[in-house]
């Protein structure tokens, strides 16, 4: 394992870790399988690329991307809570719509930022050595974001949001509007995804309309890896686990690539990693052995 591989993996782990924090928020805290992320991540990238090329200050471009990500999440929340569309489908609908939106924003399927002033280039100009610039920048942003998220989840509002995921009936019986909490949580999660997308675009030097594909699975893989490190009900540790999970995931991807895996096979590998992780409890539980024939028959009966 070369030092370069490690540095690159940590950089990627941190920057994609922001998106994974969003996935943790929806899948784990809100118990809402939100697929909007596959659209809000490239939305962040597209908006940032377009704005920076148009001459907007990169910090401003990043903040605008982040807020538009929130709008995407709120839209999914609206579909689910107000129009009563199933959660999974709500996310898919927004994600699908965002594909066209992202193309519209960029005007074509990809935009280059190679010669543009990005946040990273700005920091480089402040005298941070080129080798460390991404790691310093991402570490800083991840620490700030994690601290803010941890804080939020301990506020009165944050408690209500967590309770809305764990036990919605009870939360309502205590006077909290669970629909509002779902909308807010989705907004927050997708602003994190868009922030992640924005920074990735600035980091790799381009935005591509396809860069969100499979993002949700990568995020989920990070969450699961993190939980296998340490599963804690303490928010501070749980969010830390997600970020470490993201770094380990990127490290694993890096190693797989250096072993000669084709980059195009990575999503297949990741999907199986997640399937394996999700299936672990079932395979461990010998009393509840999966009888596939029965299972299929049951599935057929339900159809």
């Amino acid at each position, binding site marked *: 394992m070369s030092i370069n591989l490690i540095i690159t993996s940590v950089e990627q782990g941190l920057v994609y870790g922001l998106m994974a924090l969003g996935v943790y928020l929806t899948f784990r805290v809100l118990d809402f399988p939100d697929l909007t992320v596959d659209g809000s991540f490239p939305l962040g990238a597209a908006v940032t690329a377009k704005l920076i090329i148009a001459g907007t200050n990169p910090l401003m471009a990043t903040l605008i991307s982040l807020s538009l990500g929130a709008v995407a999440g709120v839209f999914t929340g609206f579909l689910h809570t107000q129009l009563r569309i199933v959660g999974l489908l709500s996310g898919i609908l927004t994600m699908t719509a965002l594909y066209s939106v992202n193309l519209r924003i960029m005007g074509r399927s990809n935009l280059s930022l190679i010669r543009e002033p990005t946040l990273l280039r700005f920091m480089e100009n402040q005298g941070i050595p080129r080798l460390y610039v991404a790691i310093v920048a991402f570490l800083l942003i991840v620490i700030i974001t994690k601290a803010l998220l941890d804080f939020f989840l301990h506020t009165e*509002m944050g*408690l*209500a949001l967590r309770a809305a995921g764990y*036990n919605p009936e*009870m*939360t309502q019986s205590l*006077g*909290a509007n669970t629909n509002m909490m779902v909308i807010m949580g989705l907004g927050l999660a997708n602003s994190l995804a868009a922030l992640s997308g924005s920074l990735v675009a600035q980091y790799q030097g381009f935005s591509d309309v396809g860069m969100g594909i499979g993002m949700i699975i990568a995020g989920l893989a990070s969450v699961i890896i993190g939980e296998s490190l340490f599963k804690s009900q303490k928010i501070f540790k749980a969010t830390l686990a997600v970020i470490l999970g993201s770094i380990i995931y990127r490290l694993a991807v890096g190693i797989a690539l250096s072993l000669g895996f084709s980059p195009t096979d990575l999503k297949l590998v990741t999907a199986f990693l997640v399937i394996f992780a999700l299936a672990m409890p079932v395979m461990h539980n010998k009393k509840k052995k999966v009888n596939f024939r029965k299972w299929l028959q049951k599935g057929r009966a339900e159809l």
Partner: protein
Amino acid sequence: MLILKNVEKVFNQGQATENIALHDLNLQVEKEEFITIIGSNGAGKSTLLNVIAGVYSVDSGVIHMNGEVTTTWPPHERARHIGRVFQDPLLGTAAEMTIEENLALARRRGQRRRLKIAINNDLRNQFRSSLSLLGLGLEERLEDPVSLLSGGQRQALTLLMATLGEPQVLLLDEHTASLDPQSAKDIIKLTRKIKKEQNLTILMVTHNMYQALELGDRTIMMDRGEIILDIEEPERSSFSVKDLQERFAQIRGEQLGDDVMLLT
């Protein structure tokens, strides 16, 4: 305090499984009254509580609470006035959150939830003194996740949470039915204590006829979505379980068939 007028609730209307859960139901509850509600399975007891709490919307009729018409209010708005304890101890608390987080959540009933850290040391002290009244040692375990508590402990915590944030009405839906006998006794004791100290209006559904006559000051019996018997003190104190059964037979022209109701 709480008035239900001509309330009608039908499940699966127009389908083969149509079920009239509440039929032209009228009920007036006075402030600080403690009403016990009995009736066999499917009589509409739980539906009544759920309609009051706003979990089910009514098909017709009006609900007044504290002088306001709450018929169309969503549950979280009605929760300003109403505290609830469910039959299943798992339902009343968030298992993954700590005892103090659950209490902090309950404390903001009817108020805006702010972007402010929910728990501080002052609150911890308040929580400790409230919890110590339960006599379960929970005051030493503020930071334990609720999932570590027993059913009885969780139900006691739920009862405490249901009274935080100054609700005026407490809805108890067979809140001792899934507990072991000792915990059930403790919870009933706690219920009495809360009633004594907090001047709440209480509606309590129970399967147990003895308990129904012993607790509170008014008992109503439901059958097929209607209130068929409504007895208050002082008349009630002369009522025995046998009287209840006879009255039921008299009114409905049939025997009260639900064994569970007699034995528990």
